[in-house]
């Protein structure tokens, strides 16, 4: 009790100090900018601070801010217990009263529904209220929304384990026969799953440009290790292949040649398309991998949807992000270590 009173007094004094500083600073800022302090809004303040104190930090919460303390600290320091020291909430001593209130309510509802079912099954009487199964599967709150829900409303800090328990309980509840009040209780924390599928943008796939001579073409970049390739694909062609001014004899090994031709053979468009490519950097296999990446991305508008599905399922459209590992101090190479000595 005493500790609580101390904290309340400190909180009050803090807020008074911060409000005084805020008012002072606000008047100075208004003076500097040439605006009347009554007409200054929060947007003016934000712009001014971005100009006076620029920062390159990524986290927006750690950049300098200038706000009224009521936006940052809670105003009222409510006493959750009365004069005698008895708390109002019946689960105050669990340290997370609102979280446990929700969980116990859900468990209580489950018990009531089980009793109803037992009564119906044993006596054969009709149910008192309408009870139905849920028609769709429900999706429950994410971790982040769960943490924010308790932090903003009740200023409680919840952990990951408690989120897991919450999800398990709600799924159990949702599989029983429910009354209307139970459905309303569940809708606070979840929503039915949408059967929408994220599909590739058709506008991006079908984009192409037109030449001066009237031919359609598309250029895309391909990357692998440290090689960069620029590939252009012309539609309605004969099957010409050009790499840095030479044909497919630019590559000597058979692996590299097969890699370059792979997307064309899959979509069966060897004789229908012209390809011109420009490659820099890397080695032999890296350059051929870069051309394959660029080719498969540039082929998409000139080919049917069935072939686009094939290219995406086989993993040809994604970049290979494997790169040589760096050397570390205290070791010879990336993983090789010095010889072990006993002393």
């Amino acid at each position, binding site marked *: 009790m005493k500790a609580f009173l101390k904290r309340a007094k400190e909180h009050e004094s803090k807020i008074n100090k911060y409000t005084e500083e805020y008012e002072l600073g606000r008047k100075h800022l208004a003076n500097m900018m040439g605006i009347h302090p009554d007409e200054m809004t929060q947007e003016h303040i934000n712009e001014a601070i971005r100009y006076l104190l620029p920062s390159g930090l990524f986290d927006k919460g750690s950049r300098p801010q200038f706000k009224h303390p009521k936006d940052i600290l809670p105003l009222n320091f409510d006493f959750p217990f009365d004069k005698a020291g008895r708390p109002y909430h019946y689960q105050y001593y669990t340290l997370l009263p609102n979280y446990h209130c929700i969980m116990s309510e859900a468990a209580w509802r489950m018990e009531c529904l089980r009793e109803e079912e037992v009564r119906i099954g044993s006596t054969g009487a009709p149910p008192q209220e309408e009870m139905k199964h849920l028609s769709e599967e429900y999706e429950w709150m994410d971790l982040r929304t769960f943490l924010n829900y308790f932090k903003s409303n009740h200023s409680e800090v919840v952990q990951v384990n408690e989120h897991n328990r919450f999800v398990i309980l709600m799924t159990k509840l949702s599989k029983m026969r429910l009354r209307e009040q139970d459905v309303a209780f569940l809708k606070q924390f979840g929503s039915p799953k949408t059967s929408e599928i*994220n599909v590739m943008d058709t506008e991006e796939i079908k984009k192409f440009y037109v030449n001066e001579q009237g031919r359609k073409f598309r250029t895309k970049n391909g990357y692998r290790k440290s090689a960069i390739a620029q590939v252009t694909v012309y539609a309605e062609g004969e099957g010409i292949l050009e790499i840095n001014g030479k044909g497919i004899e630019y590559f000597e090994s058979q692996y590299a040649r097969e890699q370059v*031709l*792979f997307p064309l053979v899959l979509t069966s468009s060897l004789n229908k398309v012209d390809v011109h490519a420009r490659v820099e950097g890397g080695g032999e296999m890296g350059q051929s991998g870069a051309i394959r990446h660029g080719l498969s991305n540039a082929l998409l508008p000139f080919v049917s949807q069935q072939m686009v*599905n094939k290219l995406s399922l086989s993993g040809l459209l994604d970049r*290979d992000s494997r790169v040589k590992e760096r050397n570390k101090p205290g070791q010879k190479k990336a993983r090789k270590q010095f010889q072990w000595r006993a002393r």
Partner: protein
Amino acid sequence: MALCKGKTIYHTLLGIYKQHISTSYFSTNKVLSNMYKDRVPSVQSIEELNALCIDDKPVEKKIRIPAKSEFSSAVTYDPIVQKFINILMRDGKKEKTREIIEQVLENIKMKQIENYHKATTDAEKAMVVTDPLKVFHGAVENCKPLLILKTIVKGGSGYRVPVYCHERRRLRVGINFIIKTCDTRKRKVPLSTVLATEILQAYNNEGNAVGKKHQLHKECEAQRAFAHYRWK
């Protein structure tokens, strides 16, 4: 609650579920990130691709693991032959091993054509298999063991215990048997001819590579009494 490396934690409030922690909280070495953790596996065989993509319906947009550089739609691509090449390779020289194995398949075919022409009756001619890939698959199948000996330490001493294993492990052991019988001899003959004879013999259940498999099975029979050491 001290959390240690590799131990599981049980919560019993609303049911039992396990939580596995791979490294301890007191270690200073950082765990190297798995860059393919959030990616979905991709299809790696062309027959499956043709079976999955029949309609014109668009496919879900996901980030998939990119295809390997050896995977291609050429006629000469085979996943088991690729595995053989990777195991036989030394010092990262893949072109050299690929040439060796092309020679091996060529030698197999030439020998089988000789046998085909030597056979007199039609029934015998039908028995001779000339497809080198089929001979290769059959030889590797005949060399795969069913059980493997694994050392388990109990009471201070190690015992060799017969144990089941999955398909990938069996493939590797079978291929190792073939390679080690061919590589250890003092040979003045190139590797491709030795491998070709060994594979043809393994297809007919003869030779040293299949003999190693039989020897392994005999040792498993001898250590049968310790089979229950596999479970705690």
